[in-house]
């Protein structure tokens, strides 16, 4: 298999708040790579450093040590404006609270980041429809958020996160506001979207949702304590028929 393009690379990343006796180590020496086609989940209890990790990966915060690269470009060491430019070009976010702009249609919500970046309206609209089609939402392109279910709104948010050239998706508890079955459907959409050529970093406290990832990284007190892979051997053996032992 050929080496896949690494979209996010974190090397020895630490984040310390304050100093001296009040110092809080939110993250310590984290190494993490997410390649195209990969969905990586981060699990850990509250205060384990999950959100800090996601904020550093997205350039919303800067590490006190270590390096963060997005599509091969260093996020660390850039000015605030430089980080913002890299974010707009490469990174999309999905949050728990379905934060679409209520006065814009689905297509307008998705095309907005492109228009803000100077893309012509007609081209932005075309890219938005394309991105909505990727999450099976093209039919509802002209609906407003209050005319859609929570699950549909979250699909639109995923389309917005990965519209145009952006290929790194950072998701913070994206199923938190949804019922169990709808949450599961969102994971299926996220998974499919990543398989089609994106990279996803998913923060969740739900094991059932983390299990959709290729790798699960466990954080405790700001340190990566474990990483699991889905063992394709077991899957193959189980899928090969015969008695279906679980």
């Amino acid at each position, binding site marked *: 298999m050929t080496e896949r393009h690494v979209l996010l690379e974190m090397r020895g990343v630490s984040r310390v708040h304050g100093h001296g006796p009040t110092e809080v180590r939110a993250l310590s020496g984290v190494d993490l790579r997410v390649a195209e086609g990969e969905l990586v989940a981060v699990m850990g209890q509250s205060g384990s450093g999950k959100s800090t990790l996601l904020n550093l990966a997205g350039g919303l915060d800067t590490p006190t040590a270590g390096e963060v690269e997005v599509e091969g470009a260093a996020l660390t060491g850039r000015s605030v404006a430089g980080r913002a430019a890299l974010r707009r070009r490469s990174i999309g976010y999905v949050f728990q609270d379905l934060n679409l702009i209520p006065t814009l249609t689905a297509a307008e919500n998705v095309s907005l980041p492109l228009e803000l970046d100077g893309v012509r309206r007609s081209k932005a609209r075309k890219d938005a429809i394309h991105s909505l089609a990727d999450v099976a939402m093209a039919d509802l392109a002209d609906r407003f958020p209050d005319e859609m279910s929570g699950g549909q709104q979250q699909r639109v948010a995923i389309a917005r996160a990965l519209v145009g050239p952006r290929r790194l998706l950072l998701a913070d508890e994206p199923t938190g506001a949804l019922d169990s079955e709808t949450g599961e459907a969102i994971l299926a959409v996220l998974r499919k979207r990543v398989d089609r050529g994106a990279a996803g970093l998913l923060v969740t406290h739900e094991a059932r949702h983390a299990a959709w990832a290729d790798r699960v990284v466990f954080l*405790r007190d700001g340190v990566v304590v474990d990483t699991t892979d889905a063992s394709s051997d077991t899957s193959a053996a189980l899928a090969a028929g015969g008695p279906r032992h679980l």
Partner: protein
Amino acid sequence: MSIRQGLLALLSEQPMYGAQLRSEFERRTGGTWPLNVGQVYTTLGRLQRDGLVEAAGDADDEGRITYGLTEAGRGEVATWFTTTVDRESDPRDELTIKLALGVTLPGVDIVAIIQAQRAATVAHLQDLTRLKRDALAGGDLPWELVLERSIFTAEAQVRWLDHVESRVRRAAAAASATVPVADVDHEMQESRA
């Protein structure tokens, strides 16, 4: 299997005779697994045969023999605590007993045991989820439901492990917080003097 491992774990703390082992086992596992003393002695006999325990001296006045661990027995206890539970062998009971005993014994890194088990269970969940994706794609509803049953069980285990870890960490924090309080008392007495 867990009775055997449970008795060995108890003996890692101190040598005991059969009736003591029985009451300690029941006390520390919250009485979820009542044992009769015959089971305990049968198990001790097998453990002695396998070279994992030995008589720690002669019988006392009441004819009771105290058993202690051999070197091999200590190795067996260490292995049990550092090996994840096989899903096929009724994981709930063995894991419950392992954690219940683990929190009462000195020198057991309970948080590390919980994490190892959580990682193993999440890896299993990943496998189940891959199979479920195939089942969904193929429209195989009965298989999907069977898989869901295992997914719910594994998910519940992870949630329970999360809870146990929080509880254990809170208990540890409370225990360490009592030390400074004692120091403060001491300092106050000194300042009064």
